[in-house]
């Protein structure tokens, strides 16, 4: 089960995230649980692998907003980087960055079990 401590240890700005969730701990944790199980992470990988950078950007952009709102800083930082590249449809090898994002996401899932 996720706790504030675990998230803090992960590197999330818990205070900020909590404040945005009207200081309701249960509500905040519930939203984080929901966010990390968002199929968008896997969609991002598939889409970019297929070379659809436009759609890839849309997904990354959405994920960026969500992780920013929940103040999941390490995830947010990685997603922001890739979102910027995708915004400009930069032709590069995205695999490593996407794997890093997936790994961070998996880290959180592990923490939640």
């Amino acid at each position: 089960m996720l706790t504030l401590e675990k998230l803090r240890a992960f590197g999330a700005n818990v205070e900020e995230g909590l404040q945005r969730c009207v200081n309701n701990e249960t509500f905040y944790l519930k939203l984080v649980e929901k966010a990390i199980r968002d199929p968008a992470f896997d969609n991002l990988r598939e889409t970019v692998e297929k070379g659809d950078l436009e759609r890839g950007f849309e997904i990354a952009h959405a994920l960026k907003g969500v992780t920013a709102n929940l103040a999941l800083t390490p995830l947010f930082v990685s997603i922001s980087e890739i979102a910027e590249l995708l915004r400009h449809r930069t032709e590069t090898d995205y695999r490593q960055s996407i794997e890093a994002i997936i790994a961070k996401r998996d880290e959180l899932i592990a923490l939640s079990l």
Partner: protein
Amino acid sequence: MIDAISKNEMSTEPGAVRKRKILIVEDEFVNREILTAMLDPEYEVVTAVSGEDAEAVLLRHPGEISLVLLDLNLPDRHGLDILREMKKDLRTAKIPVIVLTSDKEAEVECLDLGAIDFIPKPYPIQKVVQARIRRTIELSEDRDLIRGTERDHLTGLYTREYFYRYAAQYDVYNPDVPTDALVLDINHFHMINERFGKQYADEVLVRSGQAILEAVGLCGGIACRRSADMFLVYCPHLSDYKAFLDGIVTAACGADKGRIRIRLGVCSETDKSVEMQTRFDRAKIAADTVRGSFTDCIAFYDNALHEKEVYAERLLYEFQTAIDEKQFSVYFQPKYYIRPEKPVLCGAEALVRWIHPDLGVISPGIFIPLFEDNGLIRMLDRYVWRETVMQIAEWKKKYGCTVPVSVNVSRIDMLDPDLIETLRELVQSGGLEFCDLHLEITESAYTEDARQIISTVNSLRDIGFVIEMDDFGSGYSSLNMISTLPIDVLKLDMVFIRNVFSENGNLRMLKVIFEIADTLSVPMIAEGVETAEQLTALREMGCDMVQGYYFSSPKPASEFEKYIREWLPTVESAAV
């Protein structure tokens, strides 16, 4: 916190607080949930996860959504497209939209499309979000209130209050633009109302308003509906008002060409230090100078009008002093009984003159209409009655005989509940008989509130006053009315006499009138008799009495006395 608790408490009472509805259009569950949580206690939140969904919600809650929070990246449509469609649709155009975005590039485009504000991602803290939303709703509701009251419901033009404010604002930002104040008035609008009905009259107003709005739009001005059929326009100076007015009149007529006539008064390029309202008052004065005209329908407020206005203003201002200092002087014009070979003095009419210390003798033709307009005539009439009673009493004492004098009783006096008492006391204070004072009541007064006037006149007659109907022949008396009215004497209007004796006049008309008076056994006085020829003709037709320059102009009391002295021997011989 306290706020939230008190609101919650209130909402437990049924119907106590109705929360405003906010639509959140956001496909990301987490974001939607956060915003909902932030807004939940204060607002009723409705959500949509796509463009299509949002559209459906808006249609399901017509007029109920106070605000839309719109995400730009939606699965089916871009937020900007939704914004564009909302602004195009009258049902949703007025709902304020706050865009949720972290995309700086989209901001200008959103504003251009009509978004009011942004909420960035990550969202600011709850208080900030709430404050922005509260402020946006407040502004938008204020704006709706203003829109609801600033315009006249029938024509869509500004209402007067807003018009004057916008006009003042115009001057602030365009201090050097020569600007004209215009008044447009539909001629005889009440008759259009009466003849063709209210619905038709309203259509005329709507068409006129629309045409004015279009004309004003072309020249960069503003317009309002000032009152029933009167419109105001404030616009940069135009050189051709004929074209301006023609276009409006044509549109106002619609299919009924030529039916509607509009008069236009222009107060042109005046000094902007003259108060706004005054400029429009002046345009109105100008418009009213062409009120009845069929040939002219445009009038400019010019120097002559200004001088007339200033003059009128001065007369009004100095009225009280004139009364106090007895600048008003009562003149007497003799009336002669013409049945005998040698006409005999039978009375006089009291006529007021204003002997102004600086302006000289002012004609009653100038100041009487002025005082009639604002009620000062009541005071002036009382002044004249008093002076007249004193004069009759003085002559009575000096010559031992009574010269009956008629005084004017204005229309407004007839509505005065104290009229009868005032006159009674006055006559008694002078030690006179009631029949020594004749009361002239104008013909047109009878047609206004006939029943009340007739009842007052009856009471005055019962006391013993002699009633003369003034200006007979100038108004609209019907024969039927005359036969039933309580009148002792008919005074034939001066203008009528003048016309009858003019080149194209019809003497037969006059004859008929005398026959009628004879049938009714009401004696007739002809006013304005100037020549021996007129006198002879009138006498032949059976006229009883005559007043006019042929015998004498109105004279001050001292000069009038010579007529009394001429008359005295006949009185004395009759007494013997």
